[in-house]
């Protein structure tokens, strides 16, 4: 089943407040092999002018994917998760995420298009602090493989 193009432009509810923690930042950094001490050493991070340890550049995928989940399970969108492949991802950071940040994220389906029997869905997720300060814009393209 192809993805329903009528969901283009639909924005889904924001996720509950996500609090960036030192432990999660260090755990994520270790998982991707990032050895920069700015992820784990608070004093080092502060010496560089940050309020606390800095999340790796792709850490924002955690709240982003939580927000995208609302689009993926929307029955009107018709996205078959079992046929979903990640096509593209990009992050535009207005500032780095640091431990202690209280953020939220909301996803908009930007584009749905058919390509060679597959559906390509572009989702844009805005990550902001709970006070509304923009932190990161996330762009994600998923490909829903067509049935052969």
């Amino acid at each position, binding site marked *: 089943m192809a993805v329903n193009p009528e969901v283009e432009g639909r924005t889904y509810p924001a996720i509950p407040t996500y609090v960036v923690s030192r432990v999660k930042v260090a755990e*994520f950094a270790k998982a991707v092999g990032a050895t920069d001490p*700015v992820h784990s050493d608070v004093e080092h991070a502060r010496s560089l002018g940050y309020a606390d340890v*800095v999340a790796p550049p792709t850490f924002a*995928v955690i709240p982003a994917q*939580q927000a995208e989940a609302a689009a993926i399970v929307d029955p009107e969108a018709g996205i078959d998760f079992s046929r979903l492949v990640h*096509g*593209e991802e*990009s*992050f535009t950071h207005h500032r*780095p995420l640091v431990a202690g940040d209280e953020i939220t994220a909301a996803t908009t389906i930007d584009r749905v298009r058919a390509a060679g029997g597959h559906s390509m869905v572009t989702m844009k997720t805005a990550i902001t602090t709970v006070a509304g300060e923009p932190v990161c814009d996330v762009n994600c393209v998923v490909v829903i493989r067509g049935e052969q």
Partner: protein
Amino acid sequence: MTVKASELNVGDSIGSREIPVDRATFVRYAGASGDFNPIHWDEKFAMSVGLPSVIGHGMWTMGAASSLVSEWVGDAGRVVEYGVRFSAPVVVEYDGATPLSVSGVIKKIEGDRVAVELTATQGETKVLSRALATVDISER
């Protein structure tokens, strides 16, 4: 921060690294990221949906590749833009997989913004394409 604008030229290498991968790598990433899709850790399930074996998370590959940039610039908080296309999965056989090889070259310098193009391969297979990270090297 370890890089200085006056010392950088388009075409310069930022170095390279080899990152070993095994099943535990992806179990660890699943836990850290919250993405528990079984194609990343359950071989029987992965093969039942037509994959050659367990495959890594694309987002792991993207994250691992970015660590080369962070280490080069000397401050991960300087990465202001980062985008990739996933061109092939990292395949992880049970008995040990080919490591991920990452290298980078300076593509563009515009004022305090330096764009680095990354190459990420597993053996002969290019796993990322159009992988571009932009770092801010301004004095603070």
